[in-house]
């Protein structure tokens, strides 16, 4: 996407594009300013991604250098050849990183009709069930996230890394928060990645501590979960530096 390409788009298309990019433009903004805002946002986005890290993917992108930036001008929700939904009551979840999971779901038309009929406008919500402690279902800790009838996917902030969990798509009788939740669908069971070291019963000895430092552990912001370990690594590279005590 470059200025030439943007100039060729209608004002309506530009506004639609700006909206897709999450830009909040004042109504009635003149066309040159809309173009400028979009270009600024594209540059900013690119710089953000570049400064976010030096991981391999930035270089990986260079493989696909044959053409200009052509993205964003074709709306992704208008997907030819794909069904917009599969009309089934289901939920699936994916772990993105230690802090976030992604869930998508759907409620079949018949289920929706039943909900509307039996429990007038029964609200939907997601129940994130923490299975980490090996608890039985009813005894598990959980938290609920209300969703609207039109929502079909959410990113969910996880309270901690190393969490084993499931996400249930639930409903309950409208206007009654103490009413028992009814589960419409259950997701697969997931585990979010741990963010702490697992030193094992012997802890981390001096040699290992030095080798972990040499391996770049300080860049990974990893912490230990062994509070009594005298050689624990509490924060990036504070206690253990290469050459310590050499």
């Amino acid at each position: 996407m470059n200025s030439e390409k943007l100039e060729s788009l209608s004002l309506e298309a530009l506004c639609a594009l700006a909206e897709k990019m999450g830009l909040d433009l004042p109504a009635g903004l003149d066309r040159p300013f809309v173009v400028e805002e979009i270009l600024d946002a594209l540059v900013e986005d690119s710089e953000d991604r570049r400064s976010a890290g030096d991981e391999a993917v930035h270089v990986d992108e260079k493989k696909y250098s044959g053409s200009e930036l052509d993205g964003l001008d074709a709306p992704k929700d208008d997907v030819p050849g794909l069904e917009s939904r599969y009309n089934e009551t289901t939920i699936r979840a994916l772990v993105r990183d230690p802090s976030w999971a992604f869930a998508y779901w759907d409620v079949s038309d018949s289920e929706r009709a039943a909900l509307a009929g039996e429990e007038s406008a029964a609200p939907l919500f997601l129940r994130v069930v923490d299975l980490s402690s090996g608890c039985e279902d009813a005894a598990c800790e959980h938290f609920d996230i209300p969703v609207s009838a039109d929502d079909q996917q959410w990113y969910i902030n996880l309270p901690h890394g190393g969490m084993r969990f499931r996400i249930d798509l639930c409903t309950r009788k409208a206007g009654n928060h103490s009413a028992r939740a009814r589960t419409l669908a259950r997701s697969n069971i997931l585990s979010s990645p741990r963010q702490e070291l697992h030193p094992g019963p012997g802890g981390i000895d001096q040699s290992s501590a030095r080798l972990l430092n040499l391996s770049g552990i300080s860049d990974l912001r990893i912490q230990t979960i062994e509070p009594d370990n005298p050689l624990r690594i509490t924060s990036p590279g504070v206690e253990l530096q290469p050459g310590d005590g050499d």
Partner: protein
Amino acid sequence: MANGQLALVLNAHLPFVRHPEYPRFLEERWFFEALSETYLPLLRLFRRLEADSIPFKLTLTISPTLASMLGDKLLGDRYLLYLEMQSRLAAAEEQRLSGDPTFQPVLRLYSELYRQDREDFETLYGRDILGAFDYLYKKGRIELITSGASHAFLPMFVDCPEAVSAQIETAIVAHRRLFGKHPTGFWLPQLGWHPGLADALRSYNLLYTIITTRSALLGDPTPHRGSFAPVQCPNGLTVFIRDAEATKAVWSESEGYPADSAYRDFYRDIGFDLPIDYLSPYLEEEHARIFTGFKYWSVTGPTEAKSPYDPERAARRAREHAAHFLAARAASAGLASRWMDRPPLMVCPYDAELFGHWWFEGPLWLEALFRQAEGGPLDIVTLGEYLRQFPENQVSMPEFSSWGDGGYAEVWLDGSNDWIYRHLFKAIERMTELAERFPDESGLRERILNQAAREVILAMCSDWALIMRAGKAHAFARRQVEDAIGNFGKIYDMLCSNTVGTEWLTRLEKRNNIFPDVNYRIFRKKR
């Protein structure tokens, strides 16, 4: 203490892009550029090292999608047309710059590159690039390993064992067909590891894979040799660990060697500098500006005022950087060896296309590295060699991680690409349903089921999600996913209604002709 050991691992991969339905297709250039700037230059440097009896060693993945394209006649024909077009552009540039001595050395470099590429591709290798790598494989110079069939980001699919198996098994079958051997190692696409993959990999008799430092150090228990030795999953799968410092030295866009001011600037290309009317005869689409590969400026620094590229100066820097890299690894090994009970191993996995395509001088650096390493303090080894030397390793189960931004799945799961998964998982579920319903088909129905399996595997390709997030070629990437899932959906409907459009099927088989040995039964439920 013995010397440290250094294992270079290159992952050669491109997604499957082949469009016979069009006379020319812009994104096929990705493959042509990589052939010209990476794969053929790599083979040339291996030849030079062989000629000089330099004992180079390398572990190399040729991904199944890339292998399929390397062996494809249509793409071979089109590559020759690409070379012809590049040579014509070089001739036009010689004329345009005839009075300007500044750019003559770099221009000669490009003219020679495309001439040499043509000679190697057509005459020396008879278009058989896979054969050229196989020759080095059989000689023990390189160790060829495989990767996910369509480079799927496997942590996303750990709850779908059928999908994971389809990626692994299809890749192994392709590797055996192409190279006549069972691969011993498996490159995890995007270094995407999840504990749930260990059993699947081991069940296919794969001996080892490679993970990020993060995966390893967060493993259970913590590896006591850090990243300087592999660990072993409880099921026996050996997991090599990427060396973080070596990675940064080459990968980092800001601090890595490729950012040196003497090297060729990747972004400044005549495709965006010269008038479009002048360029049009040499472009796939007459008025779409593209990177032509003709780049005359050096990185210089954070300025728009670039200095002309000086190939000799850049080559000197590549040799200096190779020396620096070896010295830094030797120093690291020296430190680590004080705390080790065996020679420290440093595993350096990189995308092959970094060398030559993005970092133009990368092949020179690699060649200098092998030459300078001879007789030095580091032994260059392949991963298989190391494993034969040290078959027993600490038992530890690494944690989920990848080499993408943030270290996890953010690149392949964000607002730009998360819509894929609803359709993808449905397609996988339906493919499993078909494989269960039709377990023993033959003839036309087997053909159509196999094509369905191909389409699902193609839709799982992680490159499309990555490209969508990057913004470049976004619409194209989206279309690849839509097409594959759309094709699968059409086949599914045909099978459900017991009608088969044979003409359409034949056309699709000819277009998406990847994985000729695919067996749709790989999607049967794992029991």
